[in-house]
């Protein structure tokens, strides 16, 4: 590969990914690929009961199983002061292994350490636990009654975890009361699970210096290091966290899980490395679920469709522990973005969260902390309002968009939207999809009794947490960082506090450095995930990598450039003020012929630096001044089989505005993937519990992931409205399609069914739900 200096920019170039050669050759390095001499395996004993008192735990038989070295229980951990671990936003704590009672089915009860994977499972099966079942609280509405208190360990004897609200309650109520038109709907965003194909896992090992070497599936390795130091009391310098290649994350790999703590305790107690790799069932039943928001949405409007007020009251099911990985001040995440792309004069949003006998979580599943829930609520409700007003949902949206000239736009719920051009994005969508022709076709089909639907979603996200004055996790401000070293021959390395799980940082980060320094991105190595080498960062989730770390990289590169300018001045024999950076090289102002490349300057920085400090490197910790606000206009076209209820997504077009695009290949790939997850949520994915608290979706035969057969072909488009406060104008994109698409799918289905009088169906929209809705409508009309 050449190390020739760049004569053209690196941004917007569809560079093939630098990380791919290792993945396509089976040389990726995931946690389960790590093996160490003497390594033991950990298997966890899990509760079959959703709520039960633990009468006794008998480990004697397990200890007789060949290969089993040790068994630990919650009492052992409690005695060592490790019984509980803090949850990330600090409002609750979570049992590592059950103490006294279990609170959800599949909760961790005991940890078995053995010589082999199979022996550990054998040992876990031999642990005898005597349970006395307790009454189960399987939904937040039952929890609300406080007839059964699930968490007597807490000071307040109630299942109510918190009440959060934003906006003006009284003014909103008044405005709604005075609105000529009102709609109200309960919209449920079902419980689902990110289910990355690689489950969670770790290898814990104390090296010869007594230092914890911890390899773990973590989207936020530095935060893990700090959390582990706090939980275990091990000094933070004695903890080395490495997050190797991750087989997807989607938010699932943000929280710290009990298995990790058990592996560390086992490694310390037994003095040998310990590996823990969860099974798919363990993944789906005990680690980070998402959503489970019951949202009562009320919108007021004038008769001609001008929005007057929005009220959303949410009942949130948080499961047994409040393990949502939200920033400290935001227990309901960024739910305040629920006004969406619309210029509401007044609004009020509130969330009440409850404990239930379900798995803990509430993580941000491919979204920025509850943005998906908010986006779905408003986009679904806008269609219900359009139906009520009997106007085109596109017109309703257009009429109420925040207009281009209103940016920076202060929303009534407290965000300052940085930029956007919603009208333009929607226009591109309408043009590309051929909306008028579709409407005509729909009229014809309806006349024949055929069910065809067109559904829109014109969403706005808030991502890139976040400015330190508002955002922290465990008290640590949500900045991010980058460190860049340029080597003498003009190649280099950039290290960041983020961690790719497939997003392609090894390529896109190199492109940012290449753009800023005029170097070949093929020779800019990117390293992430190692807390010994990377500067402190808060990690990759909530679409924060490009908005925060991407900005840090650009700023660090500019610091490198400033240092390089001094060396360049020496080389060009002029004063520093006479040197300008132009066309990806340094040149004497007004004398383009007199120039030096960054590659030449890099060599000089080590060989001919004159009075300047040797070397060429810089770091930058970036505290974002604001969030970024990616947006999009999506449309789904569906056909429904009247006899079977089968929904066929005929077309889906996503037009995204994520600001400046670093790599269009990667951006499009992210959009395809996010749309597929949005499709999955709209039609397939649900973690259901029965009334007794049993999890009904414990593996991939019950928790349905779309295959290549079901997944529609995706069409994409773009508008580019750069973020005014981001150094390169980028906004982040990985989550937009998952945030924006569910509403478009559901709106299309309901549009198709609207001639039958169907107003709303909760996700996932399965064939049987559609079939029932059609049959019910037919019964009512005959």
């Amino acid at each position, binding site marked *: 590969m050449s190390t020739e200096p760049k004569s053209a920019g690196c941004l917007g170039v569809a560079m093939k990914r630098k990380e791919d*050669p290792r993945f396509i050759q089976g040389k990726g390095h995931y946690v389960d690929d790590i093996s160490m001499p003497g390594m033991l395996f950990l298997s966890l004993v899990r509760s079959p009961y959703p709520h039960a008192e633990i009468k006794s735990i008998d480990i004697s038989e397990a200890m007789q199983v060949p290969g089993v070295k040790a068994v630990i229980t919650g009492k052992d951990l409690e005695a060592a002061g490790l019984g509980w671990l803090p949850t990330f936003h600090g409002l609750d704590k979570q049992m590592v292994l059950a103490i006294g009672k279990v609170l959800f089915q599949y909760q961790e009860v005991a940890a078995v350490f053995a010589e082999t994977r199979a022996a550990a499972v054998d040992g876990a099966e031999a642990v005898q636990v005597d349970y006395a079942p307790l009454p189960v609280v399987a939904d937040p509405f039952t929890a609300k009654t406080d007839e059964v208190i699930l968490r007597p360990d807490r000071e307040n004897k109630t299942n109510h975890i918190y009440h959060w609200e934003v906006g003006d309650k009284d003014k909103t109520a008044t405005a709604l009361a005075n609105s000529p038109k009102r709609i109200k709907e309960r919209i449920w965003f079902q419980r689902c699970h990110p289910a990355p194909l690689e489950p969670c896992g770790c290898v814990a090992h104390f090296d010869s210096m007594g230092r914890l070497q911890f390899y773990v599936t973590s989207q936020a390795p530095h935060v893990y290091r700090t959390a582990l130091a706090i939980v275990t009391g091990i000094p933070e310098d004695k903890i080395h966290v490495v997050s190797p290649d991750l087989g997807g994350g989607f938010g699932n790999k943000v929280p710290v899980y009990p298995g990790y703590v058990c592996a560390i305790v086992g490694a310390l107690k037994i003095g040998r490395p310990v590996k823990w790799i969860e099974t798919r069932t363990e993944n789906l039943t005990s680690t980070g679920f998402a959503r489970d928001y019951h949202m009562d949405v009320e919108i007021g409007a004038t008769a001609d469709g001008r929005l007057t007020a929005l009220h959303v009251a949410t009942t949130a099911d948080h499961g047994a522990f409040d393990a949502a990985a939200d920033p400290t001040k935001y227990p309901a995440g960024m739910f305040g973005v629920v006004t969406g792309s619309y210029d509401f004069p007044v609004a009020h949003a509130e969330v009440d969260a409850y404990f239930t006998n379900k798995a803990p979580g509430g993580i941000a599943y491919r979204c920025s902390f509850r943005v998906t829930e908010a986006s779905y609520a408003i986009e679904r409700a806008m269609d219900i309002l359009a139906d009520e007003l009997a106007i085109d949902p596109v017109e309703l949206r257009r009429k109420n968009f925040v207009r281009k000239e209103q940016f920076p736009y202060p929303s009534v719920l407290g965000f300052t939207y940085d930029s956007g051009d919603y009208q333009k994005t929607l226009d591109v969508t309408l043009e590309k999809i051929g909306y008028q022709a579709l409407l005509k076709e729909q009229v014809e089909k309806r006349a024949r009794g055929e069910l065809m639907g067109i559904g829109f979603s014109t969403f706005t996200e808030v991502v890139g947490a976040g400015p330190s004055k508002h955002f922290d996790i465990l008290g640590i401000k949500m900045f991010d960082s980058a460190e860049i070293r340029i080597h003498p021959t003009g190649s280099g390395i950039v290290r960041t506090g983020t961690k790719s799980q497939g997003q392609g940082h090894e390529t896109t980060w190199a492109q940012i450095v290449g753009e800023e320094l005029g170097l070949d991105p093929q020779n800019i190595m990117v390293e992430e995930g190692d807390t010994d080498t990377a500067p402190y960062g808060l990690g990759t989730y909530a679409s924060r990598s490009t908005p925060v770390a991407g900005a840090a990289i650009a700023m660090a590169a500019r610091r490198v450039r400033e240092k390089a300018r001094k060396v360049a001045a020496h080389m060009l024999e002029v004063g520093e003020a006479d040197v300008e950076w132009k066309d990806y090289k340094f040149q004497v102002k007004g004398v383009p012929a007199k120039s030096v490349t960054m590659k030449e300057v890099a060599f000089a920085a080590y060989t001919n630096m004159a009075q300047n400090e040797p070397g060429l490197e810089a770091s930058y910790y970036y505290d974002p001044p604001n969030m970024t606000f990616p947006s999009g206009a999506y449309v789904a076209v569906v056909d429904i089989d009247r006899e079977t209820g089968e929904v066929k997504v005929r077309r889906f077009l996503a037009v995204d505005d994520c600001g400046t695009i670093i790599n269009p290949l990667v951006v499009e790939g992210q959009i395809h993937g996010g749309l597929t997850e949005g499709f999955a949520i709209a039609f397939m994915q649900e973690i259901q519990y029965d009334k007794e608290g049993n999890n009904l979706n414990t593996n991939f035969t019950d928790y349905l992931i779309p295959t290549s057969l079901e997944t529609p072909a995706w069409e994409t488009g773009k508008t580019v409205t750069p973020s005014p406060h981001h150094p390169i104008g980028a906004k982040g994109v990985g989550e937009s399609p998952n945030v924006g698409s569910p509403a478009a799918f559901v709106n299309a289905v309901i549009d198709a069914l609207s001639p039958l009088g169907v107003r709303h169906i909760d996700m996932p929209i399965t064939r049987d739900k559609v079939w029932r809705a059609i049959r019910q409508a037919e019964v009512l009309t005959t």
Partner: protein
Amino acid sequence: MKVNVTVNGVAYEREVEARTLLAYFLREECGLTGTHVGCDTSSCGCCVVVLDSDKAVKSCSMFAAQADGHQVLTVEGLANGGTLHPLQQAFWDQHGLQCGYCTPGMLLTSIILLKHNPNPSESDIREGLAGNLCRCTGYQNIVKAVQQAAGTLGVQV
């Protein structure tokens, strides 16, 4: 029990428990960690390998003992020296992977798909890959990659 499996042309003779799955035999006995495990129910296809140059099999659903005396091809055996297999090249060219976890299984399933159907339509490919889950790509670029490879001569197992 003693098991003898030829993987990527190399004979591996190992003493294993009878219940050892082929996936773990490859990963832990042969040290070939390119074969991944993503579920417990043979749903995801991350563990697909090629058996006797003819069948794509889910190695999590087969005992190592059942592969005794057989030939196995894993992702590590695809490239020829420094030259990528046309399918590997196509996955790279078409951005047919993101996290890389499903990729080995996708590649090996695709090889057998193309062996039995050298000129597949898009729907043939989508049907042929339906036993392999991907959470990142939405399949579209994987389909394109298989189409690219199908257009490349010399796709052979």
